[in-house]
């Protein structure tokens, strides 16, 4: 089973040179740490920044420079600043090549639920609905099962939906899976030490296992 850093490392392997990438809060933010040095990408923050740099040193902290998670950040050379309207304009028009975000549930046709749990205080969807409705390529970072062992890869989402038919790939603590165009999770890789059988048992939605399933290389 992968820990959070393992998931982030595996997702980092999906990153290609020249990509503009939006990273959600949590595990997705960690992905930035594991992108190989020879791959040049630009990180987008939906509050109005292209070219997020590392967290600042103490003396560099600037209250006017935060990411979408409200963390203080720095800018890379070649950064650009813009308004929230312009930011979501570039998101909606498909200029962001890759969106990585967390999920509470994903259905076998690619629906995602990640903003609201009935009975709990609703904090809001932030930019998640805009991102999932427009991104060309969405990778979800998630736990395969809830703490009580229930699968989060479902036939249909039980939680309120964030977006329809948008997830392309999932990297969970147990596996890497594609969402097939006609529905179903196609198993691509197993986490180290996890068997296909374990993944089958942990996946409530339709799982497609075709041939030998390799173990992830991290």
């Amino acid at each position: 089973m992968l820990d959070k850093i393992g998931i982030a490392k595996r997702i980092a392997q999906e990153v290609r040179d020249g990509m503009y990438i939006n990273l959600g809060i949590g595990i997705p933010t960690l992905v930035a740490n594991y992108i190989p040095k020879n791959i040049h990408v630009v990180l987008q923050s939906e509050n109005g920044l292209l070219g997020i740099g590392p967290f600042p040193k103490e003396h560099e902290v600037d209250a006017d420079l935060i990411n979408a998670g409200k963390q203080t950040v720095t800018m890379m050379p070649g950064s650009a600043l813009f308004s929230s309207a312009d930011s979501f304009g570039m998101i909606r028009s498909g200029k962001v090549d890759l969106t990585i975000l967390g999920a509470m549930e994903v259905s076998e046709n690619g629906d995602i639920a990640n903003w609201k749990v009935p009975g709990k205080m609703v904090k809001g969807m932030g930019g998640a609905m805009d991102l999932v409705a427009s991104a060309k390529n969405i990778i979800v970072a998630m736990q395969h099962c809830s703490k009580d062992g229930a699968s989060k890869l479902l036939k249909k989402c039980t939680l309120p939906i964030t977006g329809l038919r948008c997830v392309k790939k999932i990297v969970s603590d147990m596996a890497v899976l594609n969402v097939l165009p006609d529905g179903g999770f196609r198993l691509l890789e197993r986490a180290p030490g996890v068997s296909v059988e374990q993944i089958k048992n942990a996946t409530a939605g339709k799982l497609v296992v075709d041939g030998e399933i390799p173990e992830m290389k991290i």
Partner: protein
Amino acid sequence: MIDKRVASAQEAIQDISDNATLMIGGFGLCGLPENLITALLKKGVKGLTCISNNAGVDDFGIGLLLKTRQVKKMISSYVGENEEFERQLLSGELEVELIPQGTLAERCRAGGAGIPAFFTPAGVGTEVAEGKETRVFNGKTYLMEHWLRADFSFVKAWKGDYSGNLIYRGTARNFNPMMATAGKITIAEVEELVPVGELDPNQIHTPGIFVHRIFQGKDYEKRIEQRTVSI
């Protein structure tokens, strides 16, 4: 030169009445019109509808206006990080309308650009779409969303001139430029107020035509919500 200067935040908001609709710039605690929020607190107007991406924290930003029960309704995209907010929401004292962030930004932009409605893919198939018209363009489904306008817009800029031209700084820009365009009365507070002619016309983010009143703010705290440093 059309001179938009007022002496203070108090003077700037003197004609705001109970039940006004306000847009308040900022993302989290970044780029907040701190002086105008403080002046609203002192004035004590009630029943406000606040359009702002977030609702502040318990003791800063719009959170301060929640504490004093001046806010009737929040229109936001994300309202976490605020216990008083949660209490008022659960008790039914506070109405909340949650809007996807990009839709919120675009609805403000539409208000200031004279576009009464537009189509966006955000929220299709979700509860955000309930009761809204949908339409298919090129095989993809979109929702129709309407413009937002406010009685007063509060914006915070880095520099401004006497005629209301504004320049923002860093990610403190965020919602401020669109909200500046969508207020019947737009009030700008700036860290540095300069005479007309000192700002480069090519670098102005908000042209003065959108700004009705401007003043230099003071005592900016610029609270940081998540101070994250690398060693």
